[in-house]
């Protein structure tokens, strides 16, 4: 036993070479980090050179660890670094910018200016509410459209299953903006759809669909429908059909069998589909811009115009951050229920 303990102690103790690697690695990494925050370099070089330095430094540092998992860390470093530098750091940057004060002309300065958030809410509360409303309505309609379709493919698709799935995906091969613009033609004032709606009395004699919330919701529903249909299909496909048969054998009517067996078992798919539809729907601004008017604008429209046209970075960041927090609040219960391993599976 003593021998084993001795051997373990030996492998744990670091050799001079390992210490050397560790120190060199850490120094290069720190050098890279300092180059990002304040360096004389400009343009892309200011990003690329530090990233290469940090990556190399971390790889050398990991080389100092003598264990099998160091290969795992080597595999993780390039992609992980990318995610940290271009996702985590930008998010903190967004948070920082949201508390700055000043104007584009005079320059911005960090000042803990919480008023940016107050301003964001009081001025753009309506657009926030509309985003959630349009996104929510579109998601519900998407369930109503996507669930029966997924059910049909999963249980009645037979040998055409793959073909039907491809058909669900196919419309998404048409560029996103062209798909959206097509709805402008479909819902046009003198078009067929408006005519039918007018005959049915759903739209007034001179009423229109285009430039209303209906058009925006229709566009959003259509554009993100595959995100709803496919997860539902996956969860329905997994259901063991003998469970439904057992329910039928026990005198459950088809409706009861669906409510008590199929629906609960497909709920994970519905939840995943809801998240995958609601998130892009709430953040979308293309549909509101192309199919609506400023009266239908959503929070995405405000964020993009504040960032790219008005150049009011602090308020734009505050809005963006608030949207992110709202989305996280919706997602966190789901994450806690499923665990991290299921997230990217």
């Amino acid at each position, binding site marked *: 036993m003593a021998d084993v303990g001795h051997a373990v102690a030996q492998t744990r103790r670091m050799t001079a070479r390992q210490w050397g690697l560790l120190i060199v690695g850490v120094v290069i990494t720190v050098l890279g980090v300092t180059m990002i925050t304040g360096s004389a370099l400009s343009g892309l070089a200011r990003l690329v050179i530090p990233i290469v330095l940090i990556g190399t430094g971390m790889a050398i540092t990991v080389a100092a660890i003598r264990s099998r998992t160091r290969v795992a860390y080597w595999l993780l470093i390039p992609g992980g670094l990318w995610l940290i530098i271009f996702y985590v750091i930008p998010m903190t940057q967004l948070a920082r910018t949201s508390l700055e004060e000043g104007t584009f002309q005079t320059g911005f300065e960090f000042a803990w200016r919480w008023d940016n958030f107050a301003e964001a809410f009081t001025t753009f509360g309506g657009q926030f509410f509309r985003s959630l409303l349009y996104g929510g309505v579109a998601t519900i309609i998407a369930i109503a459209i996507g669930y029966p379709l997924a059910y049909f493919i999963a249980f009645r698709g037979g040998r055409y299953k793959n073909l039907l799935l491809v058909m669900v995906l196919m419309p998404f091969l048409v560029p996103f903006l062209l798909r959206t613009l097509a*709805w402008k033609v479909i819902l046009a004032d003198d078009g067929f759809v408006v005519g039918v709606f007018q005959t049915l009395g759903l739209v007034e004699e001179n009423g229109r669909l285009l430039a209303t919330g209906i058009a925006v919701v229709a566009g959003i529903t259509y554009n993100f429908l595959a995100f709803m249909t496919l997860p539902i299909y996956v969860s329905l496909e997994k259901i063991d059909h003998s469970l439904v048969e057992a329910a039928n054998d026990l005198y459950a009517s088809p409706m009861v069998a669906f409510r008590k067996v199929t629906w609960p078992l497909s709920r994970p798919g519905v939840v995943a589909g809801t998240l995958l539809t609601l998130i892009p729907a709430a953040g979308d601004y293309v549909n509101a811009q192309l199919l609506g008017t400023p009266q239908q604008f959503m929070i995405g429209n405000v964020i993009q115009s504040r960032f790219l046209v008005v150049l009011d970075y602090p308020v734009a960041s505050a809005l963006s951050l608030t949207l992110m927090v709202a989305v996280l609040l919706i997602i966190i219960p789901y994450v806690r229920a499923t665990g991290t391993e299921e997230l990217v599976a």
Partner: protein
Amino acid sequence: MAVAEVLRQNPSAPRRRLGKFVKRHLLTVYAMAVLAYLFIPVAVVILFSFNNNQGRFNFTWQGFTLRSWRNAFDVPGLFESLLVSLRIAFLSALVATVLGTLIALALVRYSFRFRGTTNILLFLPIATPEVVLGSSVLALFITLNVATGFATIVIAHILFNISYVVVTVKARLSGFDRHLEEAAMDLYADEWTTFRKVTLPMIMPGVFAAFLLGFALSFDDFIITNFNSGQTVTFPLFIWGAARVGVPPQVNVFGTAIFVITASIMLLSVFLQRSRRTQF
């Protein structure tokens, strides 16, 4: 089974059978209607590439013509924007595929600390609305004083593609027999040779699928691109710009071409799969 058969023939069954009949056909009709609905905008895009439109806008049908197809390359900037999009899609999908495949290998092969952190880090970009993702990356570029353009679009596209690559490759890796690798190692192949000769060929379909997915996502991305494009004009940005002043029907020509080419490839792969299955 016999019990079920008897139950099906009992007197109260006709009503239920009628219900079943209605339900089955109602569902079929509904599903077909949904599929038709899915293809209406596609049909509109294709149809309006043949529209003989007068004036700048292409929103009302004014007669059939092949003019736009014959003069597909006449709109200044349109074809160039398509080439820019293809280049961005290729580059970003390529880099993201390499980075994402490495992460997927680490996740499936090794147990290490930060596993949960890595999973969350991969999930967050998928869960983040595109406006937030685009604007946060822009916030970084503004702070670092990096001028936005081709390179910053590629950087942002690699970012959102990595997660999708990891998901796709991981799916392929988890159904993979580790004994094959162990066998190679037993036959004195070192880790690198094993990876090159055994692991890589087996995960290649997944890696290729991940590349295609990344390519498609990047090619069609508008929102994140719009934040980080600077003066660079991609195909979606061209349409966006044109939407204000009037979209030329040539845009529909290219949209139709993209649809027809990619849809044929998809259909072809489905039919190839099916004929392969019937052979066995």
